[in-house]
């Protein structure tokens, strides 16, 4: 059946949430929004869920018809690989080139991990990456929230020791090369930052 969702006048991300609920309930729907940002966000989310979208503009509003794909609207591209997802932090910066930029990027990245799906299962910190989990790090609260959400944070003990940070770990558990190697080799996918 087709449900009509009138999301005119609603602030982001309300239209997206309403559409997602309909998709999750297994229903096709027509979403009405009154601005382009909402139209784009609804379409992007629907496509990420394997749905097709068809937009018609009428009287300054967008009528978005969302239909589930042949596979029943299940997620296609984001299907997790078999086995856990491991995100590896070998450095306390993201990318090379400029250190100030790199530390802004890694903060934005870790913040974003808490807001998107799929979540990783394990996060591993080694070499200068351990500084993300110790005193003075700007991402402690984000990491703590991820850990409370059930993600395992493994922090290389050798590295903490090397940097003189062993007593200053604020989040995650002190780990060793056995745990780290096992986590990486039994992973469905490893994402290296």
């Amino acid at each position: 059946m087709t449900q009509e969702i009138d999301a005119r006048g609603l602030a982001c991300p309300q239209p997206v949430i309403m559409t997602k609920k309909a998709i999750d309930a297994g229903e096709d729907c027509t979403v009405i929004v009154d601005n382009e940002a909402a139209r784009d966000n609804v379409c992007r989310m629907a496509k990420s869920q394997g749905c097709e979208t068809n937009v018609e503009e009428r009287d300054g509003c967008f009528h978005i018809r969302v239909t589930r794909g042949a596979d029943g609207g299940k997620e296609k591209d984001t299907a997790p690989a078999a086995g856990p997802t491991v995100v590896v932090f070998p450095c306390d910066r993201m990318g090379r080139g400029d250190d100030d930029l790199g530390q802004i990027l890694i903060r934005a990245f870790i913040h974003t991990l808490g807001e998107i799906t799929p979540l990783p299962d394990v996060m591993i910190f080694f070499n200068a990456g351990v500084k993300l989990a110790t005193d003075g790090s700007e991402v402690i609260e984000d990491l703590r929230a991820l850990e409370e959400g059930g993600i395992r944070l493994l922090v290389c003990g050798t590295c903490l020791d090397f940097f003189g940070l062993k007593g200053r770990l604020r989040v995650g558990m002190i780990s060793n090369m056995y745990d780290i190697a096992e986590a990486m080799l039994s992973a469905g996918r490893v994402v290296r930052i």
Partner: protein
Amino acid sequence: MTDTQPFWIVLFDSTSEALLAEKLFKRAEIPHKVIPVPRHISSDCGVCIRFSAPDTERVRAALDGRVTLRDIAPLA
């Protein structure tokens, strides 16, 4: 995450301005967080600075004349 205050964000025209502004936030000791510009505001890769609504005037004072802002707005 556990914050109950509504947040505002400062948007900049460049990442360098955001970096500079963060130093000013620190100097003024205003609690803040560097986050990516939310998707519903822009699809460009960019960072902004989030802070608690009651600090809005302090933020304006700390940044005034020292850094070029694009906007200060509630984080909807």
